[in-house]
């Protein structure tokens, strides 16, 4: 009650049924590609596009073989690539149908979609009347999806190459995607011009190897197809062998099969029926399977050691018996191919080729750089960070270090603005400044602008920027200026009185002095906190003390001419820079001249402004309109 059929017996039965059903099989059109063939590429890969165009160039095609690219979810537009020396713009489409509509001459659909989505996009292509051939690159497409596509292709009279393939190539005419690798290899194997051999195999990698072998022992390939390693390929070895039989330019056929499956028996049957008249050399790899102790899954999904009829020996034997030229091993394959070709040559069936000289292809810039053949000045210099290695660094400090607990945000500002690791008290001071300036209520001009913009329905960034753009000499942007003025005054040994009166005589206000709301009676708590921190942690507070002297003087003039928060941050930074022993006089001058310090207000206040924008959006506040009664219309 628990028996199950040993696979061998069953497969023999299957095989006899299978081969008889081959008669009913629809045959593929003999000619898939010409020198005018063009492809539409789905989910295009940049390297593959360029390699196709480079092939076109050395093959002296008049038109590029890539007609258009399909990038689902894109807004269209154009993609740039090289066609020889010139740059080519290739249209990009959002959908398969749009691409086909705009390019009725493109009859090859090259699908780079993943195994999850290859089905949908291939199905769309098979429905398009202008598409004749669909190539599916993805490995791991479910068998049922592959079979559904195959049945659709048959109904619509189309050809599928793949899945799990690199594609194929018709020498000197048309190349699918990455087939045959780099341009060096194409030149070395003379794939830019037609030979006389029709080649088909499962494996893409081995195809390329065989193009190399065939270029050495024959006049090269006319066409080569890799059908892909899956169990149910869209087109089979047999399909392509029968195509080669019909193509007059193909004088001999070379097949590299693999253990697993029955595809090679289709060739055996075709030979037996006399449907193959051209010389055909075949080798089925996987003879090693017999020495394996248990069933082994090889690299290709369709290559599984198991039943006897699916073995390499059985298939090689059957092919040989049916009249194919079969070597004794892969090593011997090149020899029997060479012998077979020599016979064709001797009988005059193949004529010597007049070798064309392929046009020189310009070296790609990247390749040339790699090879050390060119140099080029850079356009941009950057000194604060490096994202090229394994790990992002800020001024040389790896991000994993920066993310450790002892690093505060002030340290990050130290690395990226001041380009050094600041002492802990300095980093904490920076962070305190950020906290202090993060927000100052909804009524200040920056926050107000952000609120108005947010209520006008602008996005977060626009609302934030609307507030940030108010930062300037009168709002939050006085830190640098106050540092400049106080530094200059001390550098020039001005007394507070000289400074104040000097500025007054020029009609200028002293930046960092004065506040709209706060006064000597209503002291700004933020300034108190800053002063307290500096007194505790800074080794010198010379600039602060000077500024406080100035404040004493200005307070005599008006009660609100206090040292404000901008001014206090400005002078305390002067103290910090001068007393921490990390900066030279020149560096401090540069920091003040370039204007680092307003950055603290910009960064800090962004936090508050974002808060305001989000707040308004959260509350679905409508468009703000300023009330009439709040405006004095003074025109008459």
């Amino acid at each position, binding site marked *: 009650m*628990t*028996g199950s059929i040993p696979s061998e*017996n069953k497969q023999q039965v299957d095989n006899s049924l299978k081969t008889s059903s081959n008669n009913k099989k629809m045959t593929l059109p003999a000619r898939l590609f010409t020198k005018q063939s063009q492809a539409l590429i789905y989910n295009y890969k940049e390297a593959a596009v360029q390699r196709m165009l480079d092939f076109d160039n050395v093959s002296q095609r008049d038109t590029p073989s890539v007609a258009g690219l399909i990038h689902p979810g894109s807004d269209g537009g154009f993609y740039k690539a090289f066609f020889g020396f010139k740059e080519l713009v290739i249209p990009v489409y959002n959908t398969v149908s749009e691409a086909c509509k705009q390019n009725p001459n493109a009859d090859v659909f090259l699908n780079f979609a993943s195994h999850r989505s290859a089905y949908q996009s291939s199905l769309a292509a098979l429905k398009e009347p202008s598409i004749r051939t669909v190539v599916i690159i993805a490995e791991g497409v479910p068998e049922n999806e592959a079979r559904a596509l195959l049945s659709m292709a048959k109904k619509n009279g189309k050809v599928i190459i793949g899945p799990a393939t690199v594609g194929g190539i018709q020498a000197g005419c048309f190349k699918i995607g990455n087939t045959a690798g780099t341009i060096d290899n194409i030149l070395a194997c003379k794939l830019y011009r037609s030979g006389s051999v029709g080649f088909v195999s499962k494996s893409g990698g081995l195809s390329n190897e065989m193009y190399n072998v065939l270029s050495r022992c024959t006049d090269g390939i006319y066409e080569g197809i890799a059908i892909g390693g899956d169990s149910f390929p869209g087109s089979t070895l047999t399909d392509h062998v029968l195509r080669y039989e019909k193509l007059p330019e193909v004088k001999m056929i070379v097949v590299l099969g693999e253990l697993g499956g029955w595809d090679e028996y289709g060739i055996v049957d075709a030979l037996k029926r006399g449907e193959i008249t051209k010389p055909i050399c075949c080798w089925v790899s996987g003879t090693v399977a017999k*020495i394996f102790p248990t069933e082994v899954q090889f690299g290709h999904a369709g290559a599984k050691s198991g039943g006897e009829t699916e073995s390499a020996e059985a298939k090689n034997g059957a092919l040989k018996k049916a009249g194919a030229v079969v070597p004794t091993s892969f090593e011997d394959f090149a020899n029997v191919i060479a012998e077979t070709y020599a016979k064709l040559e001797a009988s005059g069936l193949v004529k010597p080729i007049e070798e064309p000289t392929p046009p020189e292809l310009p070296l790609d810039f990247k390749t040339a750089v790699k090879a050390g053949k060119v140099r080029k000045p850079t356009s941009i210099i950057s000194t604060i960070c490096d994202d090229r290695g394994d790990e992002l660094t800020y001024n040389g400090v790896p991000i994993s270090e920066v993310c450790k607990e002892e690093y505060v945000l002030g340290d990050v500002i130290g690395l990226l603005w001041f380009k050094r690791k600041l002492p802990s008290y300095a980093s904490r001071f920076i962070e305190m400044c950020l906290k202090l300036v993060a927000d100052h209520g909804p009524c200040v001009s920056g926050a107000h602008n952000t609120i108005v913009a947010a209520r006008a329905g602008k996005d977060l960034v626009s609302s934030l920027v609307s507030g940030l753009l108010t930062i300037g000499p009168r709002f939050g942007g006085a830190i640098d200026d106050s540092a400049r003025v106080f530094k200059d005054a001390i550098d020039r040994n001005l007394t507070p009185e000289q400074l104040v009166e000097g500025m007054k005589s020029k009609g200028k206000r002293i930046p960092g002095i004065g506040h709209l709301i706060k006064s000597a009676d209503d002291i700004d708590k933020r300034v108190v906190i800053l002063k307290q921190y500096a007194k505790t942690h800074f080794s010198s507070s010379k600039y602060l003390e000077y500024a406080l002297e100035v404040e004493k003087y200005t307070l005599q003039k008006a009660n609100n001419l206090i040292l404000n928060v901008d001014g206090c941050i400005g002078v305390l930074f002067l103290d910090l820079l001068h007393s921490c022993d990390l900066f030279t006089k020149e560096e401090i001058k540069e920091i003040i001249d370039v204007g680092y310090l307003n950055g603290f207000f910009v960064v800090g206040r962004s936090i508050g402004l974002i808060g305001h924008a989000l707040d308004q959006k959260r509350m679905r506040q409508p468009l703000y309109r300023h009330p009439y009664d709040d405006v004095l219309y003074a025109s008459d």
Partner: protein
Amino acid sequence: MARKKLREYSTKYILRNNFPIYCNGDKLNLKMIQVSPTSPSLQDLAKVQDNQWLSTTKLVVKPDMLFGKRGKNGLVLLNASLEEADNFIKEKMNQPVEMGGKKGLVTHFIVEPFMPHDVEFYLSITAERDSNRIAFSNCGGIEIEENWDKVGTLDVPYGDSIDSINLHTLVDSSIPSREYVIDFIKNVYKLFSELSFHFVEMNPFTLTSQGKPYPLDARGEVDECASFKCASKWMVNGEDVEFPQPFGRGLYPEETYVNEIDEKTGASLKLTLLNPSGRIWAMVAGGGASVIYADTVADMGYGHELGNYGEYSGDPNEDDTYKYACTIISLATRNPDSRPRALLVGGGIANFTDVAVTFKGIIRAIKEYKDDIIKANISIFVRRGGPNYQSGLSSMRDIGHKLHIPIKVYGPDVNMTSIVAMAISHINGETPSTEQHSHSNTAHTNHSNGVHINGNGILNH
């Protein structure tokens, strides 16, 4: 890897679970319990509310290890009480058996109600390229091989609905409960299609006292590539379905490790350990080329020395290639015995795999295992072409020179498999004949004269 075999328990569980969903609400009343080394004992399982049938019915116990012919080999316990079944399992658990020349431990059992029956039908469905083939016979059971000529088959074109197919010729009028059987086959067919099975077999299924079809044995294979669509339907007892290894094929930890890397990457990395004390090891790029390298070693009569089968392809990144290479080199360098060994770093001419990048990973591994490589007397033979192969080969050559490890490096101008003969000569302690005219640059020659000779001129391109 596309097709995965399921245990009988998993097959039945998945069919039973999905039956009401895809078969017009019909139910498949199967009762079964799995006992494994990690599960409670059968006696303990019988205490669970839903499993009370274990105590009230007579039982059948079978090992569930992906091998057949269990009845013929006396591994099936029929018509047993709970206690007998429990004893049977305890006695056989983790014991070695030999099936079809393959030895292994029995670890999983399936326990079901004993079902006295008269008829035994055979049913299988197999995915073919253009159709699904239904095979049916009223002569099911352990004699099916002898009765194979009585099995009728019907090909259902892929995509056609089974409801539109007439099964009356396949299931002729001599069959009892004919309409029930036809309905059953159609239902199994629907499950087969919807659940991405590649193969389902019931040998046999029988009829209950009400004349309803009831599978006594079942085995199934699913298409693992469909797991992104079907994984939730394949769940067994709330967990992802298990894909066990073929019987007698326990996985080495290294194989499991490579499987794990493989699953995480879009590229492909495969390793099968063949002979841990082999002296020829292969690290070959490409699903097709890797088979040919193994073939060539066997063709030359050294299959018994082949340590592994494996391949890497699909442009793996440097790090994955490094881990893969470390695994193979660590296997190849174990238990040094001073006799020479060889590592084939082979491959065809890549279409798009960056040879320089993958070789960087391999070189990192060689550096890490430098001492082991020398201790194990390994020579490394490299042959490869493809994008950036020149720089890949030249780095490989440099590392041999630097570390004093014998590495021979060849490009696309020599035959792909030519390094196999060199490796065989090396393990036989011979000086390969090719060496005399190929200006081979082992570390020694380079080191002694300080001149960097290119093996065959390819690096000067």
